[in-house]
């Protein structure tokens, strides 16, 4: 691996030397080793390196990407940082794993120099989740704002206007109408992921963790959220997502065939619609989430991938500058939307007419997706991230959702038992 990397490095250097002679540019190209688990991220960074090199001919960079499977990449990185050798210069770390890399003496480079000047222009919570002790270590690709996707055809058949659904009471009521008129459930719930449930906690001002980072499972807010969906399941207005989650083949087929009237998922879920549910083209509305009481925040940023610079990088200054440019600049954020269809963290961009240029996302959805985002732009709190998050998320994914929605157990019992288990489980 290292040998291959050095051969590549030599090759790139030779190439640059040749091209350097040709273009008579004296600047030496710095090659950054970049690890990711997502092919699309490579495309993005290669594009950004191109733009960077045009704008900064005196400090050219090259990206040498390696795409690993998700688990592989995080495990390799963990060991490389633990042992102090073999880590890449720039790396994508998924939020579910990020806490692991903030434990102990952080082996990542603070990005404050590039992040702080932009704080007012971006959704701050998307860098807060990668911060520790006042240092920002990662910058997110997207906001991952939680929104509700409605199937317009089904709502029309039931005579419901999506915009009239403001509270969860409205939503439950609409669910009864939909079930009665069309025979399909209002929504599906995941039992193996927290994405369609998390906003229930944050809109009530709660979270999976307490503000100081302790597991926070046995709370009235959690019970209220679970109870709401459990009641819908009992009524038949909600069903457990076929396959257990909104990323299962079974679910895609079910939803694609008009199996449910809506689903609450983060903004990045748009890509799953375009890729896996082609028959719903032109039928899906992107709307703000309902809330329990008007005035509560209607969204929350979920999921995400923070790109970081490791302390094993030889040219950290340049890496930080390049990363800041790629992830925080206007150009970079526009490319994030164009290439990946994510909601970029630079708020100012959301009203940019450039976003309306047709692409597969604009073509697919029945309304302009950013309209929903602009409505909730000041209602996107940060989730609490601490070293307790991985095990708490494991509890949600493996037990709590399953017991509440599939086994239909008594909620106070589940929460009491699971929080006792969490207490006993070492980090």
């Amino acid at each position, binding site marked *: 691996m290292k040998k291959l990397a050095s051969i590549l490095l030599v090759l790139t250097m030779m190439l640059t030397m040749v091209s350097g002679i040709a273009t008579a540019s004296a600047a030496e190209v710095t090659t950054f080793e970049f690890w990711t688990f997502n092919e699309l991220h490579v495309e993005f960074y290669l594009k950004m390196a191109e733009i960077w090199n045009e704008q900064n001919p005196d400090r050219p960079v090259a990206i040498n990407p390696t795409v690993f499977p998700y*688990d592989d990449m*995080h*495990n390799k990185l*963990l060991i490389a*940082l*633990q042992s*102090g050798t073999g880590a890449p210069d720039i790396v994508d770390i998924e939020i579910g*794993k990020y*806490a*692991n*890399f903030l*434990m*102990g*003496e*952080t*082996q990542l480079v603070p990005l404050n120099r590039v992040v702080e000047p932009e704080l007012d222009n971006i959704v701050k919570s998307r860098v807060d989740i990668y911060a520790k002790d006042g240092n920002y270590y990662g910058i997110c690709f997207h906001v991952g704002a939680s929104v509700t996707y409605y199937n317009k055809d089904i709502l029309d058949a039931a005579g419901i206007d999506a915009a009239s659904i403001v509270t969860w009471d409205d939503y439950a009521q609409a669910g009864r109408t939909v079930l009665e008129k069309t025979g399909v459930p209002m929504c599906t719930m995941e*039992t*193996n992921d927290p994405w369609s449930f998390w906003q229930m906690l944050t809109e009530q001002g709660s979270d999976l963790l307490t503000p100081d980072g302790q597991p926070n499972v046995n709370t009235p807010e959690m019970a209220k959220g679970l109870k709401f969906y459990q009641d819908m399941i009992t009524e038949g207005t909600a069903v457990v997502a*076929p*396959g*257990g989650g909104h990323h299962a083949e*079974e679910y895609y087929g079910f939803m694609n065939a008009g199996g449910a009237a809506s689903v609450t998922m983060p903004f990045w879920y748009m890509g799953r619609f375009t890729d896996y549910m082609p028959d719903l083209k032109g039928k899906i509305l992107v709307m703000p989430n309902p809330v329990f009481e008007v005035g509560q925040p209607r969204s929350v940023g979920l999921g995400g991938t923070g790109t970081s610079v490791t302390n094993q990088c030889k040219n950290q200054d340049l890496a930080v500058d390049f990363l800041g440019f790629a992830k925080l600049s206007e150009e970079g954020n526009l490319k994030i939307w164009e290439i990946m269809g994510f909601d970029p963290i630079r708020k100012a961009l959301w009203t940019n007419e450039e976003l309306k240029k047709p692409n597969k996302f604009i073509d697919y959805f029945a309304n302009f997706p950013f309209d929903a985002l602009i409505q909730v732009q000041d209602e996107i709190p940060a989730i609490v991230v601490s*070293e307790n998050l*991985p*095990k708490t998320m*494991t509890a949600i*994914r*493996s*037990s709590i959702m*399953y*017991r509440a929605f*599939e*086994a239909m157990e008594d909620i106070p019992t589940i929460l009491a038992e699971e929080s006792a*288990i969490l207490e*006993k*489980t*070492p*980090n």
Partner: protein
Amino acid sequence: MNATVQHAAKPPRKPTNETTLRHFGYNQKLAPYVFVAPFIFTFLLFFLYPMISTVIMSFQNILPNQVEFIGLRNYINLNDPIFFKALSLNLRYTFFTLLILIPMPMLLAVLLDSKLMRARNFYRSTLFIPALTSVVVAGTIFRLIFGEMPGSLMNQLVVLFGAKPIKWLKLADTSFIALIMLATWRWTGVNILYFLAGLQNIPRELYESAEIDGANAWQRFTRIVFPMLKPVTIYVLTISIYGGMAMFTESYMIFSGNRSPNNIGITIVGYLYRKAFEENNMGYGSAIGLALLLIVMIVNVIQLYLNGTIRREKKV
């Protein structure tokens, strides 16, 4: 004067590099060590060193630049409900795989060894094919077979018998059946191979003299085949116990990840993986690994003692 100089200029022949090497190569005392050196070297580097380091890590809390000894805390933490859940799954899995994967392959091997069996080689190879299939592929296929939608193979079968479709992989009992079926499908062929090898070693004369004495097929099986296969059976038993207790990939594939509803598919190694790598607690992961080693050793020592392997070796 001249003569003495000449004499002095002719020192005793010092061994050159070449002769030393030859000397080395023909040294009978040294040869065995040279032959075992590759094994010793790999053993030291890839087994002993990691093992010692695991033992040390199990007493530590390991974070970048903050490695500290925490005494027995990782071991005290093993009093953890999910660890026990994993242990229980592996124990049940081991028990049932042993129950199926020893008698059944033994009988099949006897059948395949019999001269009366038609198309023996065809069956031998088809029964072995599952072992050559990657667990990743097999796990995925089994996941689809045991899918929860009415269209999955198992649900179509169940519906034929008038029952309702079952969410196979969401319930503890049915998902356990899926795991056992995957194991049976996959390992039957391998165990048949072991037993076939054992059967080839039984002298034909024994069968002939038994036949002359009027022994029927069942008596020949219980009095000749079974006792003569004992060493093979013990070997299969020992590796199956280890294999069952360390089972991970099957569960990982069937549940498409190290996550199963309500932890119904959690295995010891899966829990080790979750703790050490998914949640960055290498120390606790090490303690889980050593606990697994200890449990497998204890179970196997008891087993070897009960069937006489250990006692017999002591007498010799």
